[in-house]
């Protein structure tokens, strides 16, 4: 994890409504940040693994995702995949200020590579 990426990850919590985020770099342990007790790091880590599997399944069906968003009643999970294999996950509250920053964060993560 580079200092720049670590700093960027910390900034993800600036907007209210961010429950947590995580980054998985190829060959490295995942870095998890939880900003809400309902979403502890262990659960976010498992969710990250689940989304990484999903990305493989989706790719296997001919859709090569740059990012994908799981929309639930009480939360949105966005996973962003970079060409170098890095995966970013952010979990946030729908219709919150954080939701307004989703596209910006996605672009920033893709640009960080």
């Amino acid at each position, binding site marked *: 994890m580079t200092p720049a990426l670590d700093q960027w990850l910390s900034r993800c919590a600036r907007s209210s409504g961010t429950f947590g985020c995580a980054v998985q770099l190829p060959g490295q342990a995942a870095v998890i940040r939880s900003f809400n007790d*309902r*979403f502890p790091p262990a*659960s*976010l880590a*498992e*969710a990250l693994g*689940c*989304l990484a*599997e*999903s990305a493989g*399944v*989706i790719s296997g*069906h*001919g*859709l*090569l*995702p*740059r*990012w*994908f*968003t*799981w*929309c*639930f*009643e*009480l*939360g*949105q*999970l966005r996973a962003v995949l970079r060409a170098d294999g890095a995966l970013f996950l952010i*979990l946030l509250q*729908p*219709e*919150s*200020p954080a*939701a*307004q920053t989703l*596209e910006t964060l*996605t*672009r920033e993560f*893709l*640009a960080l590579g």
Partner: protein
Amino acid sequence: MDDEKYFLEIIRPLFTDWSQNRWRIEVATSPDQALEILKARPIDLIVVDVNMPVLDGGQFLTLLTRRYPALKKAALTALATEEKRSTCLANGAELFIEKPGTLEGLKSAFAMLDELVSWKTQTGFQGMLRQVGLQDVIQMECLGRNSSILEVNDQTVSGRIYIQDGRLLHAVAGSLTGEAAFQKLLSLPGGAFQLQPFAPPPARTLDTPWEFLLLEAARVHDESSPKSPELAGGQESPSADGRAARLMETLICSGQGAPLYQWQCPDAAGRVDLLQAISHSATRLGQLLPLGNFSRVEVQCQDSRAVMRTAPDRLIFVRVAGENATPSP
């Protein structure tokens, strides 16, 4: 509606004034005229004179109740009897009023009618609708290959969605038409609707399959903050009209994966596998995190966007290409 034109000429300015211009009053001297007005625009309340030639008020109330079940109705008569009262109330009138002969009487009648309108405004014709309710109605009409006009309104906008044989033909909401109007109506946080008999629309402004339009409406709704000026200010959503989406493929299946509808879907079996995998992953994520019910997953690819929705009774896959499909670098 009253065949006594002078009576209408008296009450129209009075009621408009007493309502402080909250009321917009249309008058008709015959059932034909009244039906034309009802067909032309959403009406909150109709006041019907009971003693009418040809088609008396009681019969007209029956017709109105059958054709406009959600419309509020009041009956008015100069000669009130218990029999007329019972007939009118049985035929769908919410109020039975004796035609006033004095200014005080008119004020009293106005107060009762205003109360009826106010009650309706607060609670809706048949209860306030949530957005998902309106989507359900459209889905029901389209899946049933029905033809109808869905009139939608709240306190800020009125609109219509024309459905013919299960296809969306035309939408209008205020000055908007087409997809922008459709998305506007589905973005309303509450309101009321009436299903009207189908009549040809003045134009055809929709040619995108209803499945995609509904999914797009759900996406726009989820991505729109309550602070969004587009919604708060009653303006159209930029996502609704700014997206140059082109449909690439569509698949709708039963909950068990049996295809019900497909369009340009060369590998339906593969898509069903994918939808079932998505459903499995959604269940897994729901077990890991307290997120509530799953709605859908959106997948952004280099040149297209796919939306997958899974529910116990329906699996939906829609893929579109569009200039906004890829985030700007």
